[in-house]
């Protein structure tokens, strides 16, 4: 075993350690990261450390990003939100019930085995059990099978117009194609075999959970010929190696990119931008114009937010400008936006968000509260203390709610406690909660099909558990809508309904700038940071 | 008594101290620690410096060595001349060169004066390393040679030993070897035998005399013990409060002291002649010990140590109003016996009867009612009173425990203080406001407050200067007469035992080797060990108090 070898090694040196401790330190083996000579390596600092390697079991962004590195997908959405062929081309039957996918030639897994239709079917099925959009499709699926090595036939019971959009979606859980043996892992269990199908190979030996992960170019990957656009198009890898390292400290990352120790910083805290602006070697840019939506979610199960009027009062008290101003500060990087599907997306509509986008209406909120007969029940507001992008919202909201007359009990906790506690349906005083805040990437909420907050199925819904039959009807109508125009119509209804019922409070949109060394060129603008197409100068 | 009588009138001097004044650093107003001290030491001469604690003896010797504690004491005046150089004016390097080559010093505590982590051979060798350049082989030869000269056994083994593996006497021999290896002109011996048993003391004194003879070294010997002075001195200087009050050849001084202080000092020395025996009292036995045994150590899961028999088969009894002395050298088991009797340690076997009650096997709780019958006074007056408690509070602690009313106890405490010769307002004062002798009086008063039948005095006067010692002994005697207490007096000092005991028990290696009346033990010792003890007592043929030879009865 490795540790024992090292210990042995160590003992040997201790015996002869007459040259002094310093020499001893020099000789004791550390984890040597052997880098091939002259290899072109991009060292990137991502937004968090990679710890979970199964992109289907988790919705964590870093794991999704990891998924795109080592796996490919059948269909991918391009920058115009249009599904494009990636591993497979497709045909749809006239009745919109049978989708036939055909895998393109030359697809190979990292263990040299060819990618077959059976692999794709297994991968899709596992994904379908885990992803909420996938679940909707499988609800109407008649059958999904591999007709031959290259052909996949997906037969539906009733039409599902958004099937291709859902299969090709970028976030949160895309259907990554894995070998059948891997994809047959139960969806609750994490996979342990990381043989991928994508343009990069995961280097297992150099993986240190939460610290660093290395990807090597997969030489046998055959890219498509179209130019790359979001997740679609040709994934041409132009470097030998990509290394993701974690830096727990925002300051450290900035200093590291300034001194050239790293090439890429996925997220730069906006307050720290001035540190980078003077540098001639580093470019700061917004990779993803859509960015993130920050939201507040109330608990429908317990007073006072089981009362619609009080929810409305809370929504009325809040001001996006205050939240974003405190969270981001620099107006270049945030956007007041009342659309629940995110501004800049096809379904965007800002109906019903006037108070949110115009600085809040404390007086109106007070009046509503009075009408609703709010009795001063304390509101348990959960405040995560260890996630930088979530520190400001609770603090600002607490102040606004107090101004409106709410009795706010802000309870600080670490993010882990929060995610556990938000799953509790207990009364707020007994370990439950009333309101919390989180952030979504816009592509995760840009459609009623995928936005988790719009689920109105009571206990089966997302945390907060609204029972909202009207919303379910609207969502069904959306699924049934077969033209973009009809979809948009339903979407506007959903927007209005959400703002009335306050299923959740959109608190505005913000962009997260990235910093890259000027040695890196041709990076694709995309919500997911991708490392194909990038070139690195010497 | 044979004194040294050699005349040094025409012998060249080695060291001359003239008008040496030492003061507290940075404090010119306080009285000087040494006030114009002058003394002269000539080749081969032994000069004794005597005085009670705080008289400035040690400061004198440290001044000569240039080892006054930095920043605390400074020599502000006078000269110390050696080879026509004033030592006070030498730089640190020059002074270091003088040490061990010209002047050497040995100290009181052989236990602490040797570095515990360096082999003794190396410690002696270090003197050679510092002052000479000898090849290793020759160096070792010289070290072994001096070790032979100081009569150490098995020198090869001892050369490689650490100090803790040697006995006190052996360590002091190492110190002497270290001091004399470079044949200095002057040896300063600062109470070199005070911490040693009498038998060892005798050997060390004769060793110093022998070496002085062979090397012609002058010796400045500092001591508080008049017996030692009588044995070894050529010339005696008496010090008091930083001044030399009198100096004279030894015989002159002991026969014809001129100063009142010298007379007092001599008169305080207890005589080895037992006091007049007292009549056996009619009252019965108040303490009897039979078959007492105490074994230490011996258990433990992984340890297999030889058990130590600190006391075995100890039998004696004391009657009311009588004093029994237990005499022995360190490690003889005398203190163990005292602690067993007090039940501060639990005896392994045997009976202890106090006030007609067997107490050896009572539990701590059962024992408490019987505590009042037997009380103890400890050796160290600085530690035997709680420094945080007023004298009064210490005095009433015991009476309150046996249910005495607080007011009554306080009143009694004031009376007791008067009884032991302290002002009765001392009740409200704290121990640190009293001298050692006074504290020992308080400790006695505290014991007496319980109105015990037996008082155990465990080396109760050993830490006191002779004049104070005499007063405390008188106090004990007086109390015994007034209250009729029985006293168990534990001491290593035969002179003290002779003055206070009716009976004496001599202990060696945890056993009683002789038990008889004081007169018999001292005048007609039966056991060879007792005889050795008595013979080793320095100055035993001299009657200091009367300035004459001892008149054998």
């Amino acid at each position: 075993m490795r540790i024992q070898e090292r210990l042995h090694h160590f003992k040997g040196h201790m015996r002869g350690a007459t040259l002094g401790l310093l020499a001893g330190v020099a000789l004791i083996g550390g984890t040597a990261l052997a880098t091939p000579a002259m290899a072109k390596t991009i060292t990137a600092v991502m937004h968090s450390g990679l710890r979970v390697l199964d992109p289907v079991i988790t919705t964590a962004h870093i794991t999704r990003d990891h998924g795109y590195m080592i796996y490919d997908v059948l269909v991918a959405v391009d920058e115009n939100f249009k599904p494009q062929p990636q591993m497979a081309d497709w045909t749809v039957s006239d009745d919109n019930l049978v989708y036939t996918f055909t895998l393109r030639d030359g697809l190979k897994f990292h263990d040299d085995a060819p990618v077959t239709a059976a692999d794709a079917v297994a991968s899709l099925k596992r994904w379908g059990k885990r992803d909420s959009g996938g679940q909707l499709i499988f609800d109407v699926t008649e059958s999904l099978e591999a007709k031959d090595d290259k052909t996949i036939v997906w037969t539906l019971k009733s039409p599902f117009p958004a099937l291709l959009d859902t299969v090709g979606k970028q976030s949160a859980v895309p259907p990554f194609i894995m070998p059948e043996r891997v994809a047959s892992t139960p969806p609750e269990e994490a996979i342990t075999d990381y043989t991928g199908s994508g343009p990069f190979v995961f280097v297992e030996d150099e993986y240190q959970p939460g610290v660093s992960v290395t990807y090597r170019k997969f030489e046998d990957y055959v890219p498509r010929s179209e130019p790359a656009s979001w997740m679609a198009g040709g994934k041409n890898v132009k470097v030998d190696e990509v290394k993701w390292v974690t830096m727990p400290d925002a300051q450290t990352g900035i200093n590291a990119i300034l001194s050239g120790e790293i090439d890429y910083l996925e997220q730069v805290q906006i307050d720290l931008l001035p540190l980078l602006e003077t540098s001639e070697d580093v470019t700061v840019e917004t990779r993803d114009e859509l960015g993130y939506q920050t939201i507040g979610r109330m608990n429908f199960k317990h007073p006072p937010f089981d009362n619609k009027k009080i929810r409305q009062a809370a929504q009325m008290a809040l001001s996006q400008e205050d939240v974003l101003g405190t969270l981001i500060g620099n107006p270049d990087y945030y956007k007041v936006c009342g659309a629940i599907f995110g501004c800049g997306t096809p379904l965007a509509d800002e109906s019903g968000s006037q108070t949110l986008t115009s600085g809040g209406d404390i007086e109106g909120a007070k009046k509503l509260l009075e009408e609703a007969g709010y009795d001063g029940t304390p509101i348990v507001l959960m405040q995560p203390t260890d996630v930088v992008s979530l520190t400001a919202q609770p603090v600002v909201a607490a102040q606004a709610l107090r101004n409106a007359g709410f009795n706010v009990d802000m309870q600080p906790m670490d993010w882990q406690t929060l995610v556990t506690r938000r799953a509790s349906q207990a009364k707020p005083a007994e370990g439950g909660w009333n309101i919390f805040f989180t952030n979504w990437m816009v592509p995760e909420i840009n459609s009623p099909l995928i936005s988790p907050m719009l689920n109105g199925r009571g206990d089966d819904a997302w945390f907060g558990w609204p029972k909202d039959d009207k919303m379910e009807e609207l969502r069904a109508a959306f699924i049934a809508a077969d033209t973009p125009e009809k979809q948009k119509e339903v979407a506007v209804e959903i927007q209005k309904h959400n703002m009335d019922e306050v299923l959740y409070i959109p608190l505005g949109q913000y962009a997260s700038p990235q910093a890259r060394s000027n040695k890196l060129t041709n990076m694709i603008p995309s919500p997911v940071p991708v490392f194909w197409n990038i070139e690195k100068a010497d | 008594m044979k004194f040294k009588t050699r005349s040094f009138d025409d012998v060249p001097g080695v060291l001359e101290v003239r008008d040496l004044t030492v003061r507290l650093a940075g404090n010119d107003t306080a009285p000087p620690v040494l006030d114009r001290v002058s003394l002269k030491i000539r080749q081969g001469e032994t000069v004794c410096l005597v005085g009670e604690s705080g008289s400035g003896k040690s400061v004198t010797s440290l001044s000569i060595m240039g080892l006054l504690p930095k920043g605390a004491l400074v020599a502000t005046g006078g000269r110390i001349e050696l080879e026509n150089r004033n030592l006070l004016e030498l730089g640190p390097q020059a002074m270091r060169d003088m040490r061990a080559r010209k002047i050497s010093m040995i100290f009181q505590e052989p236990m602490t004066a040797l570095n515990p982590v360096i082999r003794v051979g190396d410690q002696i060798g270090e003197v050679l390393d510092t002052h000479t350049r000898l090849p290793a082989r020759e160096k070792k030869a010289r070290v072994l040679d001096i070790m032979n000269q100081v009569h150490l056994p098995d020198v090869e083994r001892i050369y490689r030993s650490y100090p803790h593996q040697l006995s006190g006497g052996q360590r002091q021999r190492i110190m002497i070897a270290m001091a004399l290896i470079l044949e200095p002109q002057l040896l300063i011996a600062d109470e070199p035998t005070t911490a040693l048993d009498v038998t060892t003391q005798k050997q060390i004194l004769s060793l110093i005399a022998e070496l002085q003879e062979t090397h012609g070294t002058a010796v400045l010997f500092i001591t508080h013990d008049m017996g030692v002075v009588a044995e070894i001195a050529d010339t005696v200087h008496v010090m008091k409060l930083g001044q030399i009050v009198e100096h004279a050849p030894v015989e002159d001084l002991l026969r014809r002291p001129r100063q009142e202080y010298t007379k007092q000092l001599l008169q305080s020395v207890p005589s080895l002649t037992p006091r007049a025996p007292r009549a056996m009292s009619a009252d019965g036995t108040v303490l009897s010990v039979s078959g007492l045994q105490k074994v230490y150590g011996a258990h433990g899961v992984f340890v297999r140590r030889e058990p130590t028999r600190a006391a075995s088969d100890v039998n004696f009894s004391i009657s009311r109003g009588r004093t029994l002395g237990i005499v022995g050298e360190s490690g003889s088991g005398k203190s163990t016996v005292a602690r067993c009797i007090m039940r501060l340690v639990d005896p392994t076997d045997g009976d202890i009867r106090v006030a007609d009650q067997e107490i050896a096997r009572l539990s701590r709780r059962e024992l408490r009612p019987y505590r009042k019958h037997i009380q103890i006074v400890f050796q160290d007056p600085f530690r035997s009173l709680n420094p945080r408690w007023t004298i009064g509070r210490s005095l009433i602690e015991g009476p309150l425990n046996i249910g005495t009313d607080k007011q009554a106890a306080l009143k009694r405490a004031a009376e007791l203080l008067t009884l032991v010769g302290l002002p009765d307002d001392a009740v409200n004062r704290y121990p640190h406001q009293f001298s050692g002798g006074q504290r020992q009086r308080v400790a006695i008063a505290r014991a007496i407050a319980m109105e015990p039948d037996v008082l155990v005095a465990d080396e109760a006067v050993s830490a006191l200067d002779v004049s104070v010692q005499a007063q405390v002994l008188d106090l004990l005697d007086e109390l015994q007469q007034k209250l009729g207490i029985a006293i168990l007096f534990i001491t290593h000092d035969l002179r003290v035992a002779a003055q206070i005991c009716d009976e004496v028990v001599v202990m060696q290696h945890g056993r009683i080797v002789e038990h008889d009346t004081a007169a018999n033990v001292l005048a007609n010792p039966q056991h060879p060990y007792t005889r050795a003890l008595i013979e080793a007592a320095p100055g035993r043929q001299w009657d200091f108090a009367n300035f004459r030879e001892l008149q054998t009865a």
Partner: protein
Amino acid sequence: MLGYIIRRILAVIPVMLIVAIFVFLLLRLTPGDPAAIIAGDAATPAQLERIRTSLGLADPLHIQFLTWAKLLFQGDLGTSLISRTPVTQMIGQRIWPTFNIAILTIALSVLIAVPMGVLAAWRHRTWVDYLVMAFSVLGFSIPVFVIGYLFIQAFSIELRWLPVQGYAAPSEGFGKFLSRAILPCLTLATIYVALIARMTRASMLEVLGEDYIRTARAKGVKETVVLFRHALRNAAVPIMTIIGTGFALLIGGVVVTESVFNIPGIGRLTVDAILARDYPVIQGMILLTSGLYVFINLLIDLSYTFFDPRIRY
């Protein structure tokens, strides 16, 4: 001696057992759910429950403890709940940066602090003494991370002498290792130096008052010999003790320093694991550090016999 070692090792067993039970209970009573971390933001309660069951977190507490203890007995610390990597492997990857930096820090600290303390004791109540004491009090008074930032600002950003962050194994080149390790080591060493220098000074002051020092001086021995041959070795036992107990302090400092300098060591591993409720990793790490603490202090106890021949076990 052997008997003593055996007894000491046996005495370690109840200590480690108490640590194990304590840590286990502490963690399981902590709110927080590793399943939620694995599943991510969009998971539903039912999905969480399924993941929890598959991780064995739904079993009763004592079953979980026994399962863990049984594996532990076989030298298996379990598998990370989050990354599904064996804990021993994670620790194996992460321990070397910490170990190397800790060793370098201790070496550096002892080399700086002991002479400082000796000097201060020797020149007791002079400006040298006051300077050393001032430094050592200051070392205790500034938070580690502030010291770290100050070093980075000064040496990496203003002077550009050293890299701002990261770690390189000695096998990648000693110069490279040193250039990255020196600032974290200095940062960590500040408090350690303060601690050791204080203790050295106090211990030396006591020893310098001993009779055998006077004896040595009476022999005419040079002051340097008095200080280093006679005094220091006698003063060594409390100094060694403080180095041992200071190890706990070092662990605390390591946690912070690794964050500031971005060193992939076990300190960060533990903090990350605590924040993610990755129970097996936390348990393994606390057991490891506690065991290390006990082991180091055992070694230090044994080292006393080297410094002081009177101590025999």
